[in-house]
């Protein structure tokens, strides 16, 4: 019994150290981080339109689209599709997405479509697409918004994030915010 009390006391004090002091210290440091560690947001005219890191649904034809999402971009319930690579239903779904893209972008060849635009992301909240995924939508956007195609294309190119290592990405929300500002 004495032993049990010892262990309980040890538990309480280690709990204070690791589960109270440690997170509070990190919380304190987070106050110096961007947006006080509440997650970076993007605002338009002083109104928050989204989190920079969290993908959001774009299905209107005058915006650049993001990747398919298994949870329809529900930012309070992230998940992937968890479909296996040989699953027939899943492959039919991918085929359907390809067909839809070709229907909306009649100017595209199949081999122009990058795989990230027809597959669901791991989190269902992927904020990025590949540069190719944005470029294939340029002609459609230009037509919808009655903008010069070259102008839209150079906007996309200015929004490509490339680093020394790692894949090139385009943040869909940032791209669309910039698109709204384009005259």
């Amino acid at each position: 019994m004495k032993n049990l009390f010892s262990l309980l006391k040890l538990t309480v004090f280690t709990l204070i150290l690791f589960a109270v002091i440690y997170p509070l210290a990190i919380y304190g440091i987070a106050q110096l981080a961007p947006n006080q560690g509440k997650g970076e947001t993007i605002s338009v005219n002083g109104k928050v339109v989204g989190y920079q890191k969290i993908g959001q649904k774009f299905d209107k034809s005058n915006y650049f689209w993001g990747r398919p999402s298994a949870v329809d971009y529900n930012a309070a319930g992230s998940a992937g599709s968890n479909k296996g690579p040989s699953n027939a239903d899943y492959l039919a779904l991918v085929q359907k997405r390809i067909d839809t893209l070709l229907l909306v972008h009649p100017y595209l060849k199949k081999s122009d479509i990058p795989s990230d635009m027809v597959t669901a992301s791991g989190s269902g909240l992927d904020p990025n697409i590949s540069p190719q995924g944005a470029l294939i939508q340029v002609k459609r956007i230009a037509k919808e918004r009655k903008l010069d195609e070259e102008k839209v294309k150079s906007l996309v190119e200015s929004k490509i994030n490339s680093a020394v290592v790692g894949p090139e990405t385009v943040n869909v929300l940032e791209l669309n915010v910039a698109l709204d500002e384009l005259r």
Partner: protein
Amino acid sequence: MNTELLGVIGIFILTIVLAIPLGKYIAKVFLGDKTLLDPIFNPIEKFIFKISGINSAEEMNWKQHLKALLSINMVWFFLCFFVLLFQGSLPLNPDNNPSMTPDLAFNTAISFLVNCNLQHYSGESGVSYLSQIVLMFLQFVSAGIGMAAAAMIFTAMKERTTEKLGNFYNYFIKSCTRILLPLSAIVAVALVFSGTPMTFEGKDAITTLQGDHVEVSRGPAAAFIAIKHIGTNGGGFFGANSAHPLENPTYFTNGVELWAQMIIPFAMIFALGFYLNKRKLSNIIFGVMTVGFLLLVVPTVMSEINGNPAIEKMGIAQATGAMEGKEVRFGPAISGFWSIATTVISTGSVNSMHDSSMPMSGAMQLLSMMVNAFYGGCGVGILNYYVFIILAVFISGLMVGRTPEFLGKKIEAREVKIAAFIAILHPLLILSGTALASYFAAHDTAMGYWFNGNATGWLNNPGNHGFSEMLYEYTSSAANNGSGFEGLGDNNPFWNITTGIVLLLSRFIPIIGPLAIAGLLAGKKYIPESAGTLKTDTSIFGIMTFAVIAIIAALSFFPALALGPLAEFFTLK
């Protein structure tokens, strides 16, 4: 593509380079030498031990170590179980998440206690912030337990005859305060400044650019995610784990998290060398593990970069490889690498959905956990490998006709029996669990209380891949890994309870076994090395150990792998 491979290679090499000084530091901590953080933590520890009435200077034998280890785990289990069971009515629950069902609370408490973090719930909707914090506590202490057990084994391997193997509480608290806490703090700060949230405010409601209303989950994530990797726990703050853009916002944080999960397992091996002053032994062990690791990594990264053959046939561009279940900011190369790092090292955090990996990658991920001896989890990795060393010593001793000895101690029937039992337990638990679940799925049994509906309902994919989902779940439980083929419908009494039992057995028996072997050996007479001694720090002995590991894994698991991922691989060709 080339820069992606460079990223992978860079992180791997950087981890090895930094693991050597860290290993030296860990050895110093365990030896009780003076270290940098003593002035801060010595008084705190003294105070904690004094109030708790624990004498941290008292030397313990292996049985006392075990008793202390098991009893404190019991205390933690009940603490966590009750918090999860009543979290809905306890404080710090801004998102009003409900309390857990008893079977889910049972599974979750065990899985965090045993450093597995299986997570049959989803972080955003399944736990309160209070529960997250209690789970984070378990992430610290369960890693500390693993390291304390390893420290006792290090002590037992010294060249002397003794029953006295240091103090369990001392090893435990030092592992937590001197190693886990500072490393976690560094990682947490890196994450916070890269965009991972650390806030106690609940969900945010926003209107998106095109006018939809969405709620965005946040929380005190950065502190949690740091120890999740440093302690090789792997339990995510958010449902999608490290694929979630707040949990792992950039390519840089991905590198940090990869580094964080590999660093202690790597360093522990070097620590053994420094501790015993046998650098060559630890280099050989590290070499064997690295060869095994690379054999698993290369096919995985290649098959992810090459993409899905079935999608290839549809005629689209797979320049970025297989992207289902992956994030654009990581890409296939480092996602493939991560999937092997996390399964080899019992972390189980994921930055891509393993269920959607290519069949060959799935086979390699499974094999990583089935082998369960390369690098391994925080502390326990070296325990698993220790068992194979004992078996290899025994077998090679028989082959060359010498008495099997390891570090000057005779290996006799009792130790070999324990080692063989541990080696057999792992496949036994995995295969009998899978056989049971597959039987129900094959007969589409109505499960009654155990599952809502018929057994095939828990599968997310048909055919061979469905079998892989069940095999993966038990393999992940038995390896205390915690990743999953997450399509499996696992939040129900059948999966919660059966995997919970597998988790308990496969955590504590593989700790008890090596501790017992090491304790028994430590008490034996020390025989100085002579010309007749079988050398255990040579590459030949390294190859021998590798062969023992490979043969046991192949004999136990080849049929199961053939039915699951390998069959799928050939149908996709």
